Structures are given as C-alpha cells and as structure tokens.
C-alpha cells in the first residue's frame, strides 16, 4: 500500500513540475487536455463492466463506459481544436542588423 502512496507522491511531484511554468494563454488548453486524461476512468469502467454479472452492475458499468468515452474523445478533440492557433508558426529568419539597416529612405 505504501508503494501506491509513493507512486501517488511521485505523481503529484511530476504533475506539479510539469505544469509549473505554463503561460496564461495555455491555461485553457492545458485544463482541457488534463480533462481528457482523467477520462482514463474509461479503463476502470471497462474493467468493472468486463467482469460484471448482474444486470444492475452491467447497466451502471455500461453507462460509466459511455460517459467516460464522451469525456475521452470529446476532451482530446476539443483540446486539439483549441490548439490550432499554434499551428502556423514559421522558422526564424536570420537576424537583420539594425545598424546596417539604415539604407535608402527615399523622399
């Protein structure tokens, strides 16, 4: 059990470290991405449904699978859409020296 706690602590650490320096404009995409990730509950839902035998359990489980799937696919797709603005970035041009730039300025 303490192992799971250790895992928890380490994961907290990784979670903190990894997002500690994110810029404001990424707040929403990051939140949305994290949101998609907790859709991993789908795994849990599949597992319980996969071993469920009673109708109630099966029903609840299937509903959980459905909800979790919505969470997962919706989450990733919406995040991707938000991130489209970061697509079009070009590579850097060579630096133009300001000093030598003083050239022809016509009347």
């Amino acid at each position: 059990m303490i192992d799971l706690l250790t895992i928890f602590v380490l994961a907290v650490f990784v979670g903190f470290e990894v997002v500690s320096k994110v810029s404001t404009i990424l707040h929403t995409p990051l939140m949305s991405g994290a949101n998609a990730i907790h859709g991993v509950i789908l795994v849990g839902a599949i597992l319980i449904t996969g071993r469920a035998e009673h109708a109630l359990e099966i029903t609840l489980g299937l509903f959980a699978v459905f909800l979790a799937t919505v969470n997962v696919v919706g989450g990733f797709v919406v995040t991707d859409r938000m991130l489209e603005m970061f697509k079009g970035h070009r590579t850097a041009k060579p630096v133009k020296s300001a000093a030598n730039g003083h050239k022809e300025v016509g009347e």
Partner: protein
Amino acid sequence: MRVGIPVEARPAERRVAGLPETVTTLIGAGLTVDVQAGAGRHAHASDAAYRAAGANVIADHPAGQSDVIVSVQPPTPEQAAALREGDITISFLQPSGERELIDVLVANKVTAFSLDLLPRVTRAQSVDALSSQALVAGYRAVMEAASRLPKFLPMFTTAAGTIPPAKVLVLGAGVAGLQAIATARRLGAVVEAYDVRAAAKEEVKSLGARFLELDLETQQGVYAEAQSETFLERQRELIAERVAASDVVISTAAIPGRKAPVLVTNDMLKAMPPGSVVVDLAAESGGNVTASSPGEEIWVGEVLVYGAKNMPSSMPVHASRLYARNVANLLMMMTKDGQVVPDLTDEVLAGCCLTHAGELRRELP
C-alpha cells in the same frame, strides 16, 4: 631647461601649443616655461592663467630665450634664425612645404621635430597630433556641412509632412573620416562611406554606417598608397551615382606626403540635389573635389563646395587642449631630470625628427 610657447606666427592659426594645464605638467617635470603674452588668446587661456600655472609670461617670441620652442605652425624662417645650436622645435613642419625654413633649421643646427612625421605606432599614440587634430577636423566637417545645408540632417515625421533623413557620403575613412561618420550618424543622417584600405570596411560598419562596396582593389596597411590615374578614374565612375544621391559629401581621402586624390568632379556635383553641400577636408593638400579651394565656399551649380582650411583652428579650445597634451607627452618622452635630451635611437623620436645637428634626416619629397 626652458620651454617656450610663442604666439602662433601664421595667419588664421587660432590654436596654441601649450595651455596652463600642460604648463603645470612641464613644470612638474622640472622644466621652466616661457609663454609669449597673448599666446592663448583664441583658446581662451589668459596670460593670467598661464602665470597662475607657473609660467613666465614674456613679451616676445621665445626663440633665442627658450631652449625648446613648441608651436602648432612652424616658426617663420626669421624666427627660426634666432634659434641657437641644439635648440629644439616641435610643430607641424609640413616638411614638403617650406624649403627656406628647413635650410635655416639645418644651418643653425636646430633639432626639429615634426609631428607630421610621427610613426603611427601604438606607443606613439599619446603624441599623435595628426590623430587628435583629425578628430577635431572630422567633427567640425559635419558641423560645417550641417550649418551650410538648407535641410535637416535627421528625419522628422510631423504634422506638416515627413522630412526624410539627409544622406551623407564620406570618402576616406581615416581618423577624420570615421569621426565624420560618427558625428553625422549621431545627428540622424543616413551615412555611407568608402575607403581604399581593406580594414576600413569593418571600421565603417563598426560605427553603424554602410560601407560602399566598389568593384575596386583594396589596399593593406596603415596608410593608403598613391593610386594610379586609371584607378581614380574608375573610382570616380563608380561613386558618381552615390554622390548624386547624397545631400552631403565629406571627403577626407589623403595619401601622406602626396597630393590628395581627386574623387569628385564638377560633373558629379551637378547631379546632386540642389542645395547640397560638399566639405573637402583635403582641400589644403590639393583637394578631393576639383572645385574646392582652401577656406572658400564655391557654388557649383546649386551645390555648395566648402574647402577646409585649418579646420581644427575653428575649435581652438579643444583642438589646443589635445595638441598641447600631445606636445607635453612628447616632451615627457624626451625629458630626464629637468633636461630635454631626445634619444634619437628611439623609433618614435627618430621617426619625427627632421633636422638634427645640422643634418637633414629625411628626404624631402
């Protein structure tokens, strides 16, 4: 020993070879200083100030009284005649110019140092009056041009429209040329420059100006060597277009001991915008601009050509200060225990010594 600072003998010379502050230095080295009354007049150094610094103010030219005569312009042959054997003079002797004077110096066995001849080596920099005076000339060239130009140098965007920045072309990027570049840039002009020496390109760029790349061979070394007439012909052709595009041309091209190369002809001037100004710092050594004449303003069409004449004299306080310090530094190199005893085996002193012990130590051109 006595060092004498005379009133300058030549017309329009407003500098002086020693100021109260350098008098203090010299006295500190054990020398005695004679100053001719009124020597510092143009440089705003009063006789009282010299006296306060410890100098001995005398009425006449110190030749014959002082052992060392320091001046900006050389003494006249008459003044030189008063010098005694072993006396020392320091000045810009401009050796090529005055045969008569040099004959007197040789005859009287005077040791004459000419700051024109100073080797441009590292150690001599504190004595390098050519550099210090070229600094003044380069700065003044821009002031003279800006005063005469009926336009602004900087750009202005105003409610009454935009004034474009003036275009300044500097020909020759020696000490004066570089300073002209820097000063014009400070004032906001768009500056480009050309020089035959290969090192000049980087130097021009190091001041933030554009270097004019011409399809011409470049030269190595500290000084430019004389160029052939075909070279100059080609250079004029190539720069003509840039001259035509400029509001101000400042020319400083020189070759030591030679006539300055002609870079700008009247035809080239006529293509410039009306009201443009050309300042020819080389006017006294023959001129980079065909039309220029030392000390005169000449209109060529609607372009004003100003030939510089003794440019540093137009700013006598600081020009004198720099020159006086150069001279004092040179004297310090020669002074031991209150005696001025030049060691003519020293590369620097040997380099700028023109006459000594009745001998002419340099070939005159």
